[in-house]
């Protein structure tokens, strides 16, 4: 039993990270129509930055710095590559973000080298033992950090003027423009937020799995599958999709470790065949809800 509990715990931790990635992807897709294949590379770049600067800075300022850099990365990428391409089709935008992902992968290879890098947990406290399962402190931080990030993002979307503008743009882009919401500003802010979310995911994940220049691809695919599982529509769906994907992967890792990737991705495809609208009923088909 404790073995299952152990995998449940690691599934929840994985799911928290994937939720953050798929939240960034879904947010960008709903508000700007960009399906961001580079989201995983944002996570990878932030994670590597976190690991590299870890020895030079205390934790809290480092986290803030990495998040700020993540927002900056998202915003810069938007200015350079997404804004000039707003008029293109979804498929063309996908190709652009694949190009971006490869550029970031290449830059990471040149900057950080080809080795996977590791770093210590946020704190050196001893792990907890719950009902025979071990919960490391970093696992707790991953889950807590993801929850805080998600809650802050959702609250900001709900309560702030800017958040309302983003939601309005997601509901009806033309109408929001008529009401004075600048579509340029929306894309810019959204990609910045996506970059920030990716930076949080990267910092949380780096001490658990380590990070290498190749990590971005895996994360992008898993985040995209999670987002699709959530219906690519509502943010709630994105969170459910991420969590489900994490749990599926944890149990695939448990049952057949060598084929876990194939089994998880295959299961998601089958789930989609059965429920094309995603997991959360109706949200994928419903227009406008964020």
């Amino acid at each position, binding site marked *: 039993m404790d073995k299952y509990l152990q995998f449940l715990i690691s599934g929840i931790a994985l799911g928290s990270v994937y939720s953050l990635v798929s939240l960034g992807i879904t947010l960008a897709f709903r508000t700007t129509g960009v*399906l961001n*294949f580079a989201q995983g590379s944002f996570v990878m770049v932030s994670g590597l930055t976190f690991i590299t600067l870890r020895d030079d800075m205390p934790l809290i300022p480092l986290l803030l710095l990495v998040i700020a850099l993540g927002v900056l990365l998202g915003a810069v990428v938007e200015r*350079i*590559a997404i804004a*000039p*391409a707003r008029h*293109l089709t*979804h*498929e*063309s935008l*996908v*190709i*652009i973000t*694949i*190009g*971006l*992902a*490869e*550029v*970031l*992968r*290449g*830059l990471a*290879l*040149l900057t950080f080298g*080809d080795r996977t890098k590791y770093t210590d947990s946020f704190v050196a406290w001893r792990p907890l033992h719950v009902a025979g399962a071990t919960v490391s402190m970093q696992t707790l931080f991953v889950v807590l950090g993801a929850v805080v990030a998600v809650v802050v993002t959702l609250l900001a979307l709900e309560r702030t003027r800017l958040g309302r503008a983003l939601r309005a743009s997601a509901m009806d882009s033309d109408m929001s423009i008529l009401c004075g919401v600048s579509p340029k500003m929306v894309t810019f802010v959204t990609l910045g937020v996506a970059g920030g979310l990716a930076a949080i995911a990267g910092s949380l994940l780096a001490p658990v799995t380590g990070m290498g220049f190749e990590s971005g*691809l*895996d994360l992008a*695919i898993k985040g*995209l*599958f999670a987002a*699709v599982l959530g219906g*690519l529509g509502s943010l709630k769906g994105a969170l459910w999709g991420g969590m489900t994907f994490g749990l599926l992967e944890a149990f695939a890792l448990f049952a057949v470790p*060598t*084929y*876990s*990737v*194939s089994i998880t*991705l*295959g299961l*998601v*495809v*089958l789930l*989609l*065949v059965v429920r*094309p609208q995603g997991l959360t009923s109706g949200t994928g088909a419903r227009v406008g809800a964020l």
Partner: protein
Amino acid sequence: MDRLTLPLVRRRNRDITGLAVVAVFVFALPFAVADDGTLRLFILAGTYVVIATGLQMCFGYAGLLNLGIPAFAAVGAYTYAILGRDGTNPWVAVLCAVLAAALVAAVLGVLVLRLRALYFAIAAFGLVLIADNIISAWTDVTDGAEGMIGVPQLSLGDLLLGSTEGTYYLMWAFAIAVLLLSLLVRHSAYGRSVLAVRDSEVASAAFGVPVRRRLLEMFVLSGAVAGLGGALYAHDITVISPKAFGVELLLLVTVVVVVGGKDTIWGVLVGAAAVVLLQNEILPAVFASGNIELVVFGGILVVAMILAPTGVVGLIREAVQLASSRVGRGRRAEPAGEPSRETEESHA
């Protein structure tokens, strides 16, 4: 042959003539250029042409972004290598490779083509990870992540095709064949129904085009062609590993199709030439480290998509139209009818 179909036939014949010129050039090249290095570059270009045509047909004609191209090439390469190593006739192995890749495409297509177009792109991309995972883990059959060595090579009777020259002719024979296939699809009633599906699924369905079936057929065709490319690659290199069929291959093939122009086979030829030159001549001359490749090709993809979504061939065509419409206006002092039809074609 009435007035309506004549321009279509003329356009098809013009393209076939062009391809014939390319074929003659390719056949004659080894007589003029004897050095091994140049021929090797052309073999590489031929490999890209075959694999990229798989993407070009699917994306250019049907609008399906088949990001799983490297996975299909991997299925082809490994089917060929495994069967060939077990003593199957290599030609039969090539056929099996094509069929296996087509089968994988058919299964995935039946499952995910019902979903939204972008879901399809994501699922196809996932196939790259799945292929890498299965090849690396299934060590009994595939020799795992280290790769397979000693892949057998094709021969014609007693003539081994493993030499540089033999591989060159083999590769380009298939490249020309695949380009011809793409061209014939493009210029047939069937191909026009595919283009119609790309431009509007609703409208083409209203005209009786079986939309799902067209998409599935193009996807399967795309997988089969990529599988053929993979098998030929395996014949050429004789050492295959999952690394060769990762995202790098997807990046290069996408650059070939996007930079050249996805609507015609000429784009594939231009793109393959550009990528091979850049990868093997220009980049090594400018940069000391090969690691710059990802940045350069990724950057090219972004810039090309923003500045020239129709590719080099599209740009040339626009320039020609602009020039000819100016000439026409000067001569007849009225908006010419001829160029406007050309415009329609380029948007078709």
